């Protein structure tokens, strides 16, 4: 097949016990992963390098003859533009708020699902529907929910301070951000809850029983036994969801089209590259988005390791 593209070092393997059989195993392993590896490199690594290259050019598809090497000027343009920073802040706000809310609600859902002994199938089905539903559909459902003429939020919640039958949810920044975040939280909390449930079911009942016998209150059991033992599950759930929230696009595209300053980094990148045909500038934005994602991943890993170590130190 296509295995030739992978460097083979089998013959030079340092281990003395390299038999013919393990060499064959090595070759078969590489052959089997080759198609997947090639696909992944071709569709992600190669375009990313292409983006890195294009980002150094002034290149707009509407005026292709004007293509010229301009070094890091695109990056200069972006980093000194207030729109880029506004969008980055929006994205970070959405990420932090939605992940924090989801962690709390998701944990509560996981507790309920863990304890429930009836209708488990019904519960699982219900919780998987938001997970499986198309994000665009969720965005439309919530856009209509908050609609001024056709939504039920204003009609049902007009007794709350700040909400009346004429509240325009798409009329200003924070109302629009709120609507977007509700859609995002609704759709992705189930995923969070399922990951946390998996972590919760790993905790031995004996340990909780022991804590109970020793006189630990429900809160103490939660903070000193349950949470520290769910470290891995929480970490994975937060990391996955945070990076997912960081690339938020669908909800904003459908609900506000970026109006009222609700644009995200992903939306800005899309708009430059696809709608305005600014391939040079768009590529520079792509590179920056990629780097920010790496930074976010790094920070989460760091932050959580510290926090959890502290939580354990107290115990």
């Amino acid at each position, binding site marked *: 097949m296509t295995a030739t593209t992978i460097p083979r070092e089998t013959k030079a393997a340092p281990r003395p016990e390299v038999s013919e059989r393990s060499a064959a195993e090595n070759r078969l392993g*590489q052959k089997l992963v080759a198609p997947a590896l090639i696909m992944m490199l071709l569709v992600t690594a190669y*375009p990313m390098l292409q983006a890195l290259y294009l980002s150094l050019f002034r290149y707009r598809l509407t005026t292709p003859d004007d293509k010229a090497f301009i070094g890091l000027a695109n990056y200069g343009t972006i980093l000194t533009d207030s729109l880029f920073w506004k969008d980055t802040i929006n994205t970070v706000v959405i990420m932090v708020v939605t992940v924090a809310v989801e962690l709390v609600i998701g944990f509560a859902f996981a507790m309920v699902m863990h304890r429930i002994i009836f209708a488990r199938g019904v519960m699982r089905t219900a919780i998987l529907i938001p997970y499986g539903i198309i994000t665009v*559909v969720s965005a439309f459902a919530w856009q209509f929910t908050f609609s001024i003429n056709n939504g*039920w939020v204003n009609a049902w919640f007009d007794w709350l301070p700040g909400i009346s039958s004429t509240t325009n949810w798409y009329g200003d920044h924070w109302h629009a951000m709120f609507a977007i975040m509700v859609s995002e939280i609704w759709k992705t909390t189930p995923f969070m809850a399922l990951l946390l449930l998996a972590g919760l079911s790993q905790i031995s009942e004996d340990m909780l029983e022991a804590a109970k016998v020793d006189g630990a209150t429900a809160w103490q059991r939660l903070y000193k036994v349950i949470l520290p033992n769910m470290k891995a599950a929480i970490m994975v759930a937060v990391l996955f969801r945070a990076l997912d929230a*960081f*690339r938020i696009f*669908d909800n904003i595209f459908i609900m506000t089209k970026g109006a009222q300053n609700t644009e995200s980094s992903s939306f800005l990148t899309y708009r430059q590259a696809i709608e305005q045909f600014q391939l040079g500038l768009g590529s520079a934005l792509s590179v920056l*988005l990629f780097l920010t994602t790496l930074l976010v991943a790094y920070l989460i890993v760091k932050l959580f390791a510290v926090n959890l170590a502290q939580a354990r130190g107290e115990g």
Partner: protein
Amino acid sequence: MRGKPGIGTWIGFIVILVWCLLPIAWIVSLSFKSLAETTTGSPQFLPKDATWENYKVLLGMTDDKTASHDFLAALRNSFGISIIATILAVMIATLAAYAIARLDFKGKRLVLSLALAITMFPVVSLVGPLFDMWRTFHLFNTWPGLIIPYMTFTLPLAIWVLSAFFREIPWEMEQAAQVDGATSWQAFRKVIVPLAAPGVFTAAILTFFFAWNEFVLAISLTSTTKSRTVPAQMSYFVGPDPFNPPYVQLATASVIVTIPVIIIVLLFQRRIVAGLTSGAVKG
């Protein structure tokens, strides 16, 4: 912790059901409202006069076929692209996951770290360069133009899920086959494949969900109903009144594209949960 469910658990149960199902009930209700009703404003939850009109319009059962033509084309594209991408991705991922779970070879770490990097990758940062490449290779606005990136982005999840399943398969079976004279390849095909089928199925469901859901690439790499999928098509829906979004038609389209999701969830909920959480706990 377990034992008799208290009142709190009951309340929690009801809260979760309302949380998950209320927005679904809302779009279903909206899909039965008439266009006239939403034009004048209709903040009540249930329709005043429930009507099948929207479904008839979208599914081409009325004389005016403009809306249904585009929607049905998009539905065809969605099904075709999602199913082909799923089959190809699962085939490639099965090979890779088998190697990762069972064999010792050089480059395993490279594959795993690349897969992990891709799951965290901001898809949008690829649309610019892919747009440029696809125009050069004449893949822009074609089915393969979407199938190829969909496969790639679902490979990591599929490899992850499958290798977790494969690790659970009893080693001895494969060794027994090899002792009996089967080659590594025969052991894979005759022994492992049948045992691994449930895992493969789970990976296929999750892959299908991804492709069915995908939006960024779908609007960036297509331009007509020749290859536009439903999520992308829905963002281009224009009703009779260009200044008001066609709420009821969008809700109807939403209900129609959610039906496959609900059927899959009803049939395979246990598998989906197992697949989603595999690798997450110990990983």
